[in-house]
Protein backbone atom coordinates (compact mmCIF):
# COMPACT_ATOMS: atom_id res chain seq x y z
CA UNK A 1 0.00 0.00 0.00
CA UNK A 2 2.76 2.42 0.95
CA UNK A 3 4.37 1.97 -2.50
CA UNK A 4 1.22 3.26 -4.20
CA UNK A 5 1.59 6.48 -2.25
CA UNK A 6 5.19 7.04 -3.40
CA UNK A 7 4.34 9.15 -6.51
CA UNK A 8 2.13 11.38 -4.36
CA UNK A 9 4.80 11.75 -1.66
CA UNK A 10 7.38 12.53 -4.34
CA UNK A 11 5.11 15.21 -5.84
CA UNK A 12 4.78 16.90 -2.46
CA UNK A 13 8.57 16.83 -1.98
CA UNK A 14 8.99 18.30 -5.48
CA UNK A 15 6.58 21.15 -4.70
CA UNK A 16 8.37 21.90 -1.41
CA UNK A 17 11.78 22.09 -3.16
CA UNK A 18 10.40 24.23 -5.99
CA UNK A 19 8.75 26.67 -3.57
CA UNK A 20 11.94 26.80 -1.48
CA UNK A 21 14.06 27.49 -4.57
CA UNK A 22 11.69 30.17 -5.84
CA UNK A 23 11.63 31.82 -2.39
CA UNK A 24 15.41 32.01 -2.47
CA UNK A 25 15.37 33.38 -6.01
CA UNK A 26 12.64 35.96 -5.45
CA UNK A 27 13.17 37.24 -1.92
CA UNK A 28 16.91 37.34 -1.36
CA UNK A 29 19.53 39.54 -2.99
CA UNK A 30 20.71 38.16 -6.31
CA UNK A 31 24.18 37.18 -5.10
CA UNK A 32 26.07 34.21 -6.51
CA UNK A 33 25.42 32.17 -3.36
CA UNK A 34 21.67 32.95 -3.36
CA UNK A 35 21.32 32.11 -7.04
CA UNK A 36 23.32 28.87 -6.63
CA UNK A 37 21.21 27.78 -3.67
CA UNK A 38 17.94 28.61 -5.43
CA UNK A 39 19.09 26.75 -8.54
CA UNK A 40 20.09 23.76 -6.41
CA UNK A 41 16.63 23.52 -4.84
CA UNK A 42 14.87 24.14 -8.17
CA UNK A 43 16.90 21.41 -9.91
CA UNK A 44 16.02 18.91 -7.14
CA UNK A 45 12.37 19.98 -7.40
CA UNK A 46 12.34 19.52 -11.18
CA UNK A 47 14.00 16.09 -10.92
CA UNK A 48 11.45 14.96 -8.33
CA UNK A 49 8.59 16.35 -10.48
CA UNK A 50 9.75 14.41 -13.54
CA UNK A 51 10.15 11.22 -11.47
CA UNK A 52 6.72 11.55 -9.90
CA UNK A 53 5.02 12.26 -13.26
CA UNK A 54 6.78 9.23 -14.73
CA UNK A 55 5.64 7.05 -11.80
CA UNK A 56 2.04 8.31 -11.98
CA UNK A 57 1.87 7.64 -15.74
CA UNK A 58 3.38 4.21 -15.25
CA UNK A 59 0.94 3.40 -12.46
CA UNK A 60 -2.05 4.54 -14.58
CA UNK A 61 -0.84 2.51 -17.55
CA UNK A 62 0.05 -0.75 -15.84
CA UNK A 63 -1.86 -0.43 -12.57
CA UNK A 64 1.29 -1.57 -10.84
CA UNK A 65 3.43 0.54 -8.57
CA UNK A 66 7.11 -0.37 -8.61
CA UNK A 67 8.34 -1.37 -5.18
CA UNK A 68 10.61 1.46 -4.14
CA UNK A 69 10.14 1.51 -0.41
CA UNK A 70 10.44 -1.59 1.69
CA UNK A 71 11.51 -2.17 5.27
CA UNK A 72 15.23 -2.01 4.45
CA UNK A 73 14.82 1.24 2.51
CA UNK A 74 12.75 2.68 5.35
CA UNK A 75 15.43 1.70 7.84
CA UNK A 76 18.08 3.37 5.66
CA UNK A 77 15.89 6.46 5.37
CA UNK A 78 15.69 6.61 9.15
CA UNK A 79 19.47 6.22 9.50
CA UNK A 80 20.02 9.01 6.94
CA UNK A 81 17.50 11.22 8.75
CA UNK A 82 19.33 10.60 12.05
CA UNK A 83 22.59 11.79 10.46
CA UNK A 84 20.85 14.90 9.14
CA UNK A 85 19.29 15.63 12.51
CA UNK A 86 22.68 15.41 14.23
CA UNK A 87 24.24 17.67 11.59
CA UNK A 88 21.44 20.24 11.88
CA UNK A 89 21.53 20.15 15.67
CA UNK A 90 25.32 20.67 15.69
CA UNK A 91 25.09 23.47 13.09
CA UNK A 92 22.32 25.31 14.92
CA UNK A 93 24.28 25.04 18.19
CA UNK A 94 27.44 26.43 16.58
CA UNK A 95 25.60 29.30 14.92
CA UNK A 96 23.76 30.17 18.15
CA UNK A 97 27.14 30.28 19.84
CA UNK A 98 28.49 32.58 17.13
CA UNK A 99 25.36 34.74 17.40
CA UNK A 100 25.65 35.02 21.15
CA UNK A 101 29.33 35.90 20.98
CA UNK A 102 28.32 38.58 18.43
CA UNK A 103 30.64 37.27 15.74
CA UNK A 104 27.71 37.03 13.30
CA UNK A 105 24.52 39.03 13.01
CA UNK A 106 21.10 37.39 13.29
CA UNK A 107 20.42 38.07 9.62
CA UNK A 108 23.62 36.31 8.58
CA UNK A 109 22.89 33.32 10.80
CA UNK A 110 19.36 32.99 9.38
CA UNK A 111 20.67 33.24 5.83
CA UNK A 112 23.37 30.61 6.42
CA UNK A 113 20.95 28.24 8.17
CA UNK A 114 18.27 28.57 5.49
CA UNK A 115 20.75 28.33 2.64
CA UNK A 116 24.07 26.61 2.99
CA UNK A 117 23.22 24.47 5.99
CA UNK A 118 19.90 23.34 4.56
CA UNK A 119 21.48 22.57 1.20
CA UNK A 120 24.30 20.65 2.93
CA UNK A 121 21.71 18.72 4.93
CA UNK A 122 19.89 17.71 1.76
CA UNK A 123 23.18 16.53 0.23
CA UNK A 124 24.08 14.72 3.46
CA UNK A 125 20.69 13.00 3.43
CA UNK A 126 21.09 11.65 -0.09
CA UNK A 127 24.75 10.71 0.49
CA UNK A 128 23.94 8.89 3.75
CA UNK A 129 21.00 7.07 2.19
CA UNK A 130 23.15 5.97 -0.74
CA UNK A 131 25.91 4.84 1.65
CA UNK A 132 23.54 2.73 3.76
CA UNK A 133 21.87 1.30 0.64
CA UNK A 134 25.24 0.15 -0.68
CA UNK A 135 26.27 -1.30 2.67
CA UNK A 136 23.16 -3.41 3.03
Amino acid at each position, binding site marked *: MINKRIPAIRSIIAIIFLVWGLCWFLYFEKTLVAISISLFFIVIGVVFSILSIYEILRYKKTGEARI*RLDERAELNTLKASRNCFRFLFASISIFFLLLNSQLLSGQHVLKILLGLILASTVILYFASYYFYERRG
Partner: protein
Amino acid sequence: MRTRVKEFRVKHGLTQEELARKVGVRRETIVFLEKGRYNPSLRLAYRIAKVLDASIEDLFIFDENELGGE
Protein backbone atom coordinates in the same frame (compact mmCIF):
# COMPACT_ATOMS: atom_id res chain seq x y z
CA MET B 1 23.42 -15.17 10.62
CA ARG B 2 23.39 -17.77 7.88
CA THR B 3 20.53 -18.02 5.45
CA ARG B 4 19.28 -20.76 3.19
CA VAL B 5 16.97 -18.44 1.28
CA LYS B 6 18.90 -18.82 -1.97
CA GLU B 7 18.84 -22.60 -1.72
CA PHE B 8 15.06 -22.69 -1.17
CA ARG B 9 14.44 -20.02 -3.79
CA VAL B 10 16.34 -21.96 -6.43
CA LYS B 11 14.52 -25.13 -5.39
CA HIS B 12 11.23 -23.35 -6.07
CA GLY B 13 12.53 -22.07 -9.43
CA LEU B 14 12.12 -18.44 -8.45
CA THR B 15 14.36 -15.54 -9.44
CA GLN B 16 15.32 -12.89 -6.90
CA GLU B 17 12.99 -10.45 -8.65
CA GLU B 18 10.06 -12.89 -8.49
CA LEU B 19 10.61 -13.64 -4.81
CA ALA B 20 10.93 -9.92 -4.10
CA ARG B 21 7.61 -9.23 -5.83
CA LYS B 22 5.86 -12.08 -4.00
CA VAL B 23 6.95 -10.83 -0.58
CA GLY B 24 6.63 -7.12 -1.42
CA VAL B 25 10.22 -5.93 -1.16
CA ARG B 26 12.86 -4.69 -3.59
CA ARG B 27 15.22 -7.11 -5.30
CA GLU B 28 18.19 -5.52 -3.50
CA THR B 29 16.69 -6.54 -0.17
CA ILE B 30 16.63 -10.18 -1.30
CA VAL B 31 20.24 -9.85 -2.48
CA PHE B 32 21.45 -8.56 0.90
CA LEU B 33 19.26 -11.06 2.69
CA GLU B 34 20.76 -13.99 0.81
CA LYS B 35 24.24 -12.70 1.58
CA GLY B 36 23.32 -12.60 5.28
CA ARG B 37 23.99 -8.87 5.38
CA TYR B 38 20.47 -7.90 6.32
CA ASN B 39 18.35 -9.16 9.20
CA PRO B 40 14.73 -9.15 8.08
CA SER B 41 11.80 -8.27 10.31
CA LEU B 42 9.76 -11.14 11.68
CA ARG B 43 6.95 -10.18 9.29
CA LEU B 44 9.24 -10.39 6.22
CA ALA B 45 10.85 -13.60 7.44
CA TYR B 46 7.38 -15.10 7.86
CA ARG B 47 6.29 -14.01 4.37
CA ILE B 48 9.44 -15.47 2.79
CA ALA B 49 9.01 -18.70 4.72
CA LYS B 50 5.42 -18.98 3.53
CA VAL B 51 6.34 -18.36 -0.13
CA LEU B 52 9.23 -20.82 0.03
CA ASP B 53 7.16 -23.36 1.92
CA ALA B 54 9.63 -23.65 4.78
CA SER B 55 9.87 -22.68 8.41
CA ILE B 56 11.70 -19.57 9.57
CA GLU B 57 14.21 -21.76 11.41
CA ASP B 58 14.96 -23.59 8.16
CA LEU B 59 15.70 -20.36 6.34
CA PHE B 60 17.56 -18.32 8.93
CA ILE B 61 20.18 -19.97 11.05
CA PHE B 62 21.52 -18.06 14.01
CA ASP B 63 24.68 -18.92 15.84
CA GLU B 64 24.04 -19.26 19.60
CA ASN B 65 26.95 -16.90 20.35
CA GLU B 66 25.58 -14.38 17.89
CA LEU B 67 22.22 -14.31 19.67
CA GLY B 68 23.77 -13.51 23.04
CA GLY B 69 21.31 -13.22 25.95
CA GLU B 70 21.43 -15.41 29.01
